[in-house]
């Protein structure tokens, strides 16, 4: 039987780069011309070994519309920040200019990376907001375990066709891998 988790797009960073776009049509990083569209209702993103090329950078994302990141301050997030060595935090914010994947900064000392599973809902429905869940596990720039369990919403009723990942103020380093899947209807 054919499977139901279908790989649509994938990009592995081969040299430091400002951002990676999964989907987004011709704006996508892979050159596969892939898009989030009406083929699937739910999409999944997998990030493995996302590392910054300079120390102490915060991982973030934005959804793309016709391949262009939506940079408006319409991202809300709510989640629990889990920490291996400190009190957990409630992270609830509205009207931010981007979504965040870990709520802390990765580093360059080795294995200070982020791993993530994200499910995206209603993306291509231009009459609905776009929602996503975020489950990340990472180490910060001090080598401490932390991760986030929560979700985000882009409070704009628009047709989203991709998602852009980046570090605020720096580059993504070599070896970081980003994959987009569709969940078959």
């Amino acid at each position, binding site marked *: 039987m054919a499977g139901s988790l279908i790989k649509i797009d994938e990009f592995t960073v081969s040299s430091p780069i400002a951002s990676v776009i999964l989907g987004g049509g011709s704006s996508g990083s892979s050159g596969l011309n892939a898009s989030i569209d009406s083929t699937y209702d739910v999409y999944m993103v997998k990030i*493995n*070994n996302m590392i910054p090329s300079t120390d102490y950078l915060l991982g973030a994302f934005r959804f793309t519309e016709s391949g262009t990141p939506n940079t408006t301050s319409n991202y809300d997030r709510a989640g629990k920040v*889990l920490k*291996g060595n400190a009190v*957990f935090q409630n992270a609830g914010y509205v009207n931010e200019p981007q979504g965040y994947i870990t709520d802390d900064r990765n580093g360059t000392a080795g294995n200070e*990376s982020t791993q993530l599973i994200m499910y995206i809902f209603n993306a291509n429905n231009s009459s609905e907001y776009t929602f996503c869940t975020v489950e990340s596990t990472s180490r910060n720039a001090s080598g*401490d375990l932390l991760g986030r369990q929560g979700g985000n919403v882009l409070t704009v009723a628009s047709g989203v066709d991709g998602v852009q990942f980046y570090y605020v103020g720096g580059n993504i380093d070599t070896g970081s891998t980003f994959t987009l899947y569709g969940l078959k209807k």
Partner: protein
Amino acid sequence: MAGSLEFIKSTSGTSVSSLSVTDCFSADYDVYEISLVDGQLTTGVANWVLEFLDSSGTPITTGVYDRAFLTLRAYNTFLETKGTGLGNYTFGYVNASESNGFEMFVYNPYSSSDYTFLNYQHSSFVPSNGGYGNKGIGVMKSAQTVTGIKLSGTSGTFSSIAVSVYGVK
């Protein structure tokens, strides 16, 4: 079209104190999804204990596990659990009256140059109280090849236990 969630193996046991899923990680995948599909003790209660298996199938029990998980309880306040430099990854809850389950993603276990990360969601039931679950993360801070997992309880014997492992291509 072929799917990207690929079944690797299932392992189960009855009347056992632990269950090892050997040689389930390989160079074929970077990320894995592990499903606990059954887990029940013969008597009493315990927490789950996860240990990764090294390249010779031996549990890694040096103080290399960091953990953080939120315990969600339908009948009481939520709890935070954290720790660093632990000898294993202890979490969740298992008992003799009800089975329970979790879904866990494991990242880079087979890489000899990367730490092995994990995150998971666990759902269980505490008799006479109510629903119980965890949302958790962890890292095994040793850059070595991991080939499998060993699951046991902090005490007791499993009347039944079953685990399936998938590769996320």
